[in-house]
């Protein structure tokens, strides 16, 4: 009988092998369960490739942006609401990957790994966004025919009020062309920053140079570095950082960048979020890029004013604006205000979350004052009625013979309406033109909410 005991261990081999297989299956169902469940053949939630067993998506005023009626998923009946919020809520076929409908299908259907799709059959969860359909509409109309992105958020609380990407389309109509219409430019694109990058150079200078505010550089329609000329629009002569920012002097910032050195500038850019992707409600944005390694001196000069290989993502810029407005530490933007079950029980809500201290409070306040001076002295406060705007324009050269991109970034410094904004309009010319106008129209609409 003893040998039976020994030989039966052969059976133990089977048992162990089987258990390993079972463990592998459990592991797979845990790591891939969401991918399995969200496959369009899953009739618990899909109908004709569209997730229909999902809750409503509403804007901050409770206006319905997406809902299910009689087993069909439908968008808002209002044309402008539909097209201006499309990239935020996402299309139902899943082409816009960063849209809430696709990226948060689990929240909308009530799926999680533990309880599966049990709550999907009773309608899933309703998601309320912080975005205002009205402000989005205004921003999209203001952008007109230009491609680009507009983002506005409350830098005290983190609520995104406006997120628009153009070109967009009407998801209720059949479309046959797709010139980048599925991309949310606010999250998934990056552009040369142009003069707006001077803010980054200024932060690095204020943080590292004791005489940052008093040191002067000379501008003679530009400056010469190693025999190559970096051009400037005017002859600004001798000027300080404050004046140079207001006049957007290329000569000043290129010399400043060279004096700071590639390493310092790289360090501060990285600290401000370059080379790592920002997130909004778990949706990953494209990372801003800057690489100053092995750079020629003259190129460092160009880089310091935003015309090297630097590329900036609008969301990451919005966070930097939030940090300047908020004493060096930004509130992270979010757009999901709350999640409630079909029975109206609140099961989740966003809360105010901060980044680390990106730069000192002193730097933030000095730069804030300079940006305020830039607006009051150069752009004119009358162009922003009822607001105290601190901002910087950018005219980002793209290629020879192509109209540059137009940037306008900044924030309103009034505490009663604490809004930061980023506007980029592709091939729209000077920042002081289109982007500034779009920013004002959007902010005027957003101001009504406060």
């Amino acid at each position, binding site marked *: 009988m003893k040998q*039976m*005991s020994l030989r039966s261990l052969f059976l133990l081999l*089977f048992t162990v092998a089987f*258990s390993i297989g079972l463990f592998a299956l459990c592991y797979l*169902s845990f790591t891939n369960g969401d991918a399995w469940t969200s*496959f369009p053949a899953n009739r618990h939630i899909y109908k004709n490739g569209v997730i229909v067993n999902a809750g409503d998506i509403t804007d901050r005023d409770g206006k319905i942006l997406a809902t299910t009626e009689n087993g069909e998923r439908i968008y808002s009946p209002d044309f402008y609401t539909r097209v201006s919020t499309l990239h935020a809520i996402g299309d139902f076929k899943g082409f816009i990957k960063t849209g809430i409908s696709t990226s948060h299908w689990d929240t909308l259907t009530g799926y999680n790994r*533990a309880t599966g799709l049990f709550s999907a059959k009773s309608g899933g969860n309703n998601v309320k966004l912080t975005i205002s359909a009205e402000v989005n509409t205004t921003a999209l109309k203001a952008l007109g025919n230009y491609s680009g992105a507009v983002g506005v958020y409350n830098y005290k609380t983190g609520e995104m009020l406006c997120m628009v990407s153009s070109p967009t389309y009407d998801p209720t109509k059949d479309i046959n062309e797709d010139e980048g219409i599925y991309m949310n430019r606010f999250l998934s694109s990056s552009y040369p920053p142009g003069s707006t990058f001077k803010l980054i150079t200024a932060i690095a200078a204020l943080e590292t140079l004791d005489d940052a505010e008093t040191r002067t550089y000379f501008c003679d329609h530009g400056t010469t570095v190693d025999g190559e000329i970096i051009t400037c629009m005017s002859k600004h002569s001798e000027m300080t950082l404050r004046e140079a920012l207001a006049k957007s002097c290329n000569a000043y910032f290129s010399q400043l960048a060279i004096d700071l050195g590639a390493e310092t500038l790289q360090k501060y850019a990285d600290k401000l979020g370059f080379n790592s992707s920002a997130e909004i409600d778990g949706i990953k944005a494209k990372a801003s890029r800057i690489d100053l390694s092995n750079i020629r001196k003259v190129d460092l000069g160009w880089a310091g004013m935003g015309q090297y290989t630097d590329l900036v993502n609008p969301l990451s810029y919005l966070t930097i604006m939030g940090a300047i407005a908020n004493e060096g530490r930004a509130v992270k933007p979010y757009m999901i205000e709350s999640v409630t079950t079909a029975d109206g029980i609140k099961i989740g809500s966003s809360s105010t979350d901060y980044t680390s201290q990106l730069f000192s409070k002193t730097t933030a306040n000095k730069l804030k004052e300079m940006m305020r001076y830039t607006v009051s002295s150069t752009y004119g406060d009358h162009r922003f009625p009822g607001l105290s705007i601190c901002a910087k324009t950018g005219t980002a050269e793209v290629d020879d013979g192509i109209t540059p991109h137009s940037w306008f970034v900044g924030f309103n410094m009034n505490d009663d309406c604490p809004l930061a904004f980023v506007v980029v309009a592709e091939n729209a010319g000077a920042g002081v033109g289109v982007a500034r106008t779009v920013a004002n129209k959007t902010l005027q609409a957003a101001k009504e909410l406060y």
Partner: protein
Amino acid sequence: MLQSLAYFYCWLIRFIIPVAAVTVIYLLFKILIGNKKEKPIFARLIDQNGKIFPITSKENIIGRGRHCDIVIRSKSAPLNAAAITLGENGWTLHPVGDILLNGNEPEATEQIGHGDIITVASAELTLDDSRDPYIPYDKNDELNLVRAKCAAVVLTMLQVMVALSLTIHYLSTDAFPIQLPICFGGLVAAEWLYLSVKKFDGVGIELCAFFLCTFGLSVAASAMPNSLYKQFIAMMLGLLLFIVISFVLKNLSLTMKLRYAVGIIGVGILFFNILFGTELNGAKNWIDLGFITVQPSEFVKIAYIFAGCASLDRLITTRNFLLFTGFSGACLLPLFIMRDFGTASIFFIGMLIIVFMRSGDLKAIILFIVAAIIGAAAIIALKPYVASRFATYLHAWENPYSGGYQQVNTMIAIGSGGLFGVGGGEGNLDTIAAADTDLVFGFIVEEWGLIIGLCCVAILILFTLYAIKRAGMTRSVYYSIAAAAASGMFLFQAALNIFGSTDLLPLTGVTLPLISNGGSSIMASMGMLAFIKSAGLGGDTR
């Protein structure tokens, strides 16, 4: 009001059912493998120096080998000297090597009694059976009665909750199947009748079966309520088969007499199947009896184990496996002709286990495996359409609407069910072909959750652990081998079913024992259980 109450029940029950199931599983583990039993002492062998060798089994090997029950530490002793077995007529000696009985050369079998002297090399062993066999009183047996009663009560609660959950689902549709309460009620009644007759003594294996049958019925009720009566009757016939086989197995000499007849009938059925079988889902392994179709290969598994195992006296005296190998070949060949490769591989695993348990010869096992691999390669080379059946293996997600359709939908079901399931009858897998048989693991996980799925599988693992634990304690090695073979075949079949439907193994289309919908499968699986149960036939019951 009633509707929201029903919703609340379905919401709550999802968490209570797993708790109840885990409780039952825990109790079953305790009942079947939780106890340490003291071995009984039937007799003693005392050598010339007064050293005592207790005899604790009814089948024992004496020899030099370390595997022997009574080890003679002498270089001149044979590896296996003799077997001594306890039967109805007292002790019997089966010499293998050079030994003497009372100074003379013994016959092939010799009746021995108190005072007889067996000489193995320099050792002179005197048999002492003067005292009554010492049967230790086991206080755990008392505890097991309590555990069995608790398990039965919790299991019945579970059954009521499952049935109610399905009832609520069907009440929300137009067609409420009256079969549902009748079959669940019938199962509970049969279960309690059986357990009461047995007085809850030694019913661990049966409780396992009732647990799995519960979810088997729930699958039938959800997938096709019209098949409920058929499935329930098959379960009851299976229970009857289980009782009959258990009764025969208890009588070892009767079992040994019936072996050849059963083996010949088993092979005969398979060849009959080749000649008169009908094709269903690509395999010609069905026989249409006019009023019902049966899958004979399921039943032949029982015959295979019944005829393939042997008791110790035969093991130690005949070292020739030719007959067994021939018998195995006679079972495998018809299955290949019928293209039932899933069942064929289950038989093959059963063969490996029986060969190893009988011989302990790893070389033979390796030889068989190599032969199987060459054979499989030859089949694929000669008949490429066989390989094409497995073409989408590991690529299910690349062919979600063609070759990987069943696997993809099973994985969707597993993901959708989560840990607690979407509720009885609420699954969507039932519209996929073979959902209630080949894809049944996904079916259970979708409706009842992964925890319940794992509980069902835990029972199949428990069967092998039970066979391993009992292997050295049975009344005869026949039971050790039979239990190992039956539980190993169950486990391998479960692996083919579960991992096949989730694309970790090729999808072969075999059933999950005791759960899948299908009369032949459930009946035969219940019959197989008798072998696992037979491992519980201890040495202490004369």
